[in-house]
């Protein structure tokens, strides 16, 4: 479930931003922790999407191999 941590991160970032001033201090001029984390939230879904797709592709290949083995004459006899 690579999606759930993203949702939790978003809600935690929102909660910390609106209920505390922990993320307000500037790390460098023009960037506070809230904005830094916002950029993590913008791009973390891209990473999660690629991880998910590569995992599913591997599963597809395994399933295809199993199907090929089961339907081949040798596999059927085995």
């Amino acid at each position, binding site marked *: 479930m690579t999606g759930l941590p993203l949702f939790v991160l978003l809600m935690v970032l*929102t909660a910390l931003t*609106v209920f505390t001033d922990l993320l307000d201090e500037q790390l460098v001029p023009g*960037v506070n922790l809230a904005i830094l984390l916002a950029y993590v939230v913008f791009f973390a*879904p891209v990473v*999660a999407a690629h991880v*998910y797709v590569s995992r599913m592709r591997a599963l597809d290949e395994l399933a295809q191999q199993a199907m090929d083995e089961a339907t081949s004459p040798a596999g059927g006899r085995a």
Partner: protein
Amino acid sequence: MNATVVGFFVVTVAATLVITFVASRRNVSVASHYVADGQLTGWQNGLAIAGDYISGATLLGTIGGIALLGFDGFFFGLGSPVAIALVLIVMAEPLRRLGRFTISDVVTRRFDKTEVRVLASLNVVSITMVYMVAQFVGAGAIVSLLLGIPFTVAAIIIGVLMLVYTTFGGMLGATWIQILQMALLAVGFVVLLGLTLAKFDFNPLATAADAVDVYGAGVLTSQSTGGTAGFSTLSLQFGIVLGFLAMPHVMIRFFTVPDTRTARSSAVTATWAFALFYAALPIVAYAAVVLVGRESITDADPGGNLTVLLLSRLLGGDVFLAFMAAVALVTIMASLSGMCITAAGAFGHDLYTHVLKKGRATDRQQHNAARLATVGFALVALAISLAAQSFNVAFLSTLAFAVAASANLPTLVFSLFWRGFRLSGAVVGMSVGLVVSVALVLTSPTVMGDGAWFPLTNPSIISVPVGFLATWLGSYLRPATGEEESAAETVTVSAQLDLPETGAAG
């Protein structure tokens, strides 16, 4: 009226009409009208998903929001990349496996009952129509500002163009207009970012740093802190992410691809488009704060909707302003077209074909019904928008997302993943989710002002859990029939696996 802006507008509209004409020659069946024959590629569908969601209000409003409200403006964009990743992981493949034309097709795979199809399609029609009217009124106001014409004329122009695109081009035409939108948006943003960064020594951090120098550190922080304002923002994020997972015009895009692999790749393309788009917005918004100034932004439009266009004119002159205005216009029309086809599908496919004709309509009859429904919805949306132009319709977007998340999402999720889900749960959940979300929005400060009965401006943090709870509890109201248990077994397995017999429904 700026002649250059009008010139670019005419050229852009001409390009979209050519696309519609070409698409209309392939719009020959009900499948081509609703889902482009299910033959789109991953990148085409991914860009169209992004084009569906990145509306005129998103493009112009989010930049204006960051420019005027600081970090509060980020909240309009933060949820969207997360939401599309969740769509990929949770919804894309099961929807592709079980749906054919509409969301109701998915739910009725589990409960093949007329009342479920009627309730699900009425939910889709309500959500889409409410969202369309919100976008329509916003779009009319923006086009009116851009072209210097009255709202009524602007709304009629948008309505007629949307009607032509969707009636003749169908889903294929709408998709290619959305692809054109994303291509123009990409070109416009790359140029705008280049021109902007050239003013800041190609240091993206300098835009916000300079904004802090001019307006103080408050431009980087939220102003909606503590108490009900804080909970309203939390609820907004909750509603954006979970509402997106059940927004019908986004979900039906997964019926336009041939298989689950393409559904996945289209969601990945959309995730990239969202991430790059939303990441660019703060740079542009903070540059506008510094170069244009908050006073000039609010002078042009108190809501900040013209921020990106003011910056474009400052950096690139009238020609670049006209180009970006054309981008905004095609963005507005592309997203409205996708919504119109979705609403028409719920009426034409679900209510006409399956309820009125009991599933016995010919393809030609269904195609005619689809086109008539498209014309009907375009005209109804136009009429409501013209009537609502003097009202504050800001609450309508909130309402659409809240109803989608509270009434549709529990039924969709439980249909796909929970064997214990029952017909009684679907009916109770959809009804309770709809009633609670509508009631909380209507009694919120957005509608009632200071004396509101419900304190939060967004109801999702309450209405979504209530919707899920009602759906869960409703499933225990009566024991399952043998038919329900058999469908539960088949659908929950079919949602997860590419079985040969699950290619199409409805």
